């Protein structure tokens, strides 16, 4: 049996998958919009509790990682395996740093007693409960995507190393890049919604 190869089909499939992800987060944005409009004042106050500095750092490094993964694709197109691996390592490192920052950010909230179902939140009223519920749920699902991305990058790097991904066959790398841009894009929306709108 001949192996059927169609890179365009693979990329098309990936784009369709990205649509599903957008709808998945889209519904969460709807929930956010509904509750923000119901409790604008509580959401404003609760938003000020978040660490804008850490959020900004995570936004910037995530944008850089989007650039490095795009550059790694260019590198493999030029047949520069070493450069490709370097750029992917940087991307992977940034993804890990993002998770470390997230750990400290969430950890601080837990220390204040701000987590779903906590007594401290219950005292602060409905709007605050919903804000932090949304914050943990949406950034949590996003962080899950980062973790999946980390797994994908490790896999792709191994494939590049083994020359399974090379100058003429790099669809896995390209699709992983598409996925990573999506994860980045969603963060671009999450960041202002939680950290910046006051």
């Amino acid at each position, binding site marked *: 049996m001949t192996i059927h190869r169609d890179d*365009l*089909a*693979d990329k098309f499939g990936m784009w369709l998958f990205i649509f599903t*992800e957008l*709808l998945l987060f889209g519904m969460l944005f709807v929930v956010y919009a509904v509750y923000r409009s119901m409790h604008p004042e509580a959401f404003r106050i609760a938003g000020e509790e978040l660490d804008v500095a850490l959020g900004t750092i995570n936004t910037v490094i995530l944008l850089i990682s989007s650039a490095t993964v795009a550059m790694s694709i260019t590198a493999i197109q030029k047949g520069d395996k070493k450069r490709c691996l370097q750029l992917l390592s940087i991307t992977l490192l940034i993804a890990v740093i993002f998770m470390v920052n997230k750990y400290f950010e969430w950890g601080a909230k837990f220390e204040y007693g701000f987590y*779903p*179902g906590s007594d401290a939140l219950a005292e602060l009223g409905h709007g605050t409960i*919903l804000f932090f*519920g949304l914050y943990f749920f949406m950034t949590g699902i996003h962080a899950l995507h980062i973790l999946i991305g980390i797994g994908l990058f490790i896999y792709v790097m191994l494939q590049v190393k083994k020359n399974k991904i090379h100058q003429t066959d790099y669809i896995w790398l390209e699709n992983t890049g598409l996925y990573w841009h999506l994860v980045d894009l969603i963060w671009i929306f999450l960041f202002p919604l939680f950290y910046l709108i006051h």
Partner: protein
Amino acid sequence: MSDNTNHKEVSYLEYQGKYRGILGWILSTDHKRIGLLYLYTMLLFFSIAAILGLLMKTQLIAPGETIMGPQTYNSFFTLHGIIMIFIIVVPGLPAVFGNFFLPIMIGAKDVAFPRINLLSWWLYIIGILIVLTSQFTGGGPPDTGWTFYAPYSFQTPTNVLPAVFGAFVMGFSSILTGINFVVTIHRMRAPGMKWLRMPLFPWTLYGTAWIQILATPVIGITLMLIIAERMLGIGFFDPALGGDPILYQHLFWIYSHPAVYIMILPAMGVISEIIPVFSRKSIFGYRAIVLSTMAIAFVGYFVWGHHMFTSGMSGRALFTFSFLTFLVAIPSAIKVFNWVATMHKGSLHLHTPFFWALSFLFVFMIGGLTGLVLGALATNVHLHDTHFVVAHFHFIVFGGTGFAFMGAVHYWFPKMFGRMYDANWANLGWGIFFIGFLSLYLPMFFLGMSGMPRRYYDYLPEFHGMNILSSMGAWVMISGILIIFANLIRSARSGPKTTEKNPWGGKTLEWQVDTPPTLENFDEIPAVDKTPYDYRDYAENTNS
């Protein structure tokens, strides 16, 4: 192409791949074998859920407790709903016949992503297993109904978590199938098969696949929210924490209404295949059917609110949703008109698949028109949550999709198994099934009109007469199903062998390949130069 030409003649059923025995099936990436895997899984679970339904109808044969108490009844209708919706009718036609025949009908050797296709089936099986654990562990079988309405779904002590999570996993399976089909249809049509030369079953699969891609994520995240609500008390749907249970209903129906079109569109596709073949006549209004398919897929997104007319919405929203509901009925009516017009002056060949198609038209009309009764605001308030809704729903989903599924089995059976079923038993089974179906569900309309609510194990004495009729109908229908299944299973194992490529006189590509098809379907990818239902030659031959 491979050089060992002696393999060419072997059918997909006999082909020896990397694995032997059962592994050759459950690890096969052949779209035909995967289609059959789905078929067998569904056969098993349909039987279970049908027996649950039968037991519920038996409970309702007289007022008061007859064979089960209220808690058992609640868990029965929940499991019946979860199995029938998430395991049978949502994957249903696309997973079985879409997998098997979509590539063949568009002239391809397989789907675009065969391995993801196999992954879909595995996710489906894992989802089923997770759902099943809900029955035997924790606080007992869930009793929420398949809709998992908040706030009850996170307050009940029963074991809702695995049921919800299982449905979530099956959603993934559905999304992957959808992606696979859209890419397959875009990229793998045979040379010359322009969009408007594609048969109508693939067209409906195309519309369905888009709904699967664009609607299923919504239920995915909604089910995740229910899980978070139960495990973490996140508060989105809990009024005590500021959440809004109505929002859950919105999110749930934003998926679950389009899901109804996931169920019915491929059924319409099957009917559009069967009717021209057994009328020996080109389909009437091919373009209208294509357009109405896409129109249903599109408008179907915007009608979810009609499930919530009594939940509390603004007057303007009520009006809009009701109007859109009436709008979405138009393309369905166009299709019915086209099917009837195709039969007009056709040369009708009365075989089992055609009987199923005819009875589909009959029950689909009843189901569709009663849908409008529910879509109208004034009557909806009266009929909401009564047996009328149950009857309407079963006329569409069981009468529509179920009849089309049976029609599809009997239509494609010789091609799939290389054997023929006994037509007399098949027709007898159909007749008994049809009579049983009508006497089971028609009385429910009257019961609902006179106010019998759904989802109760008990009822007032004045509803007794109609309920006896309905329960008897259930037993008749099950007898019909038994005859049909026994006939099909026996025939698949030991029916008379056939290698005839085209037993029904079909024009689409699946009737040009070997019976049963070879592993790669086609020795040579065919070139297509005309519309799929071109029966002009038949008309000329019979006229001369």
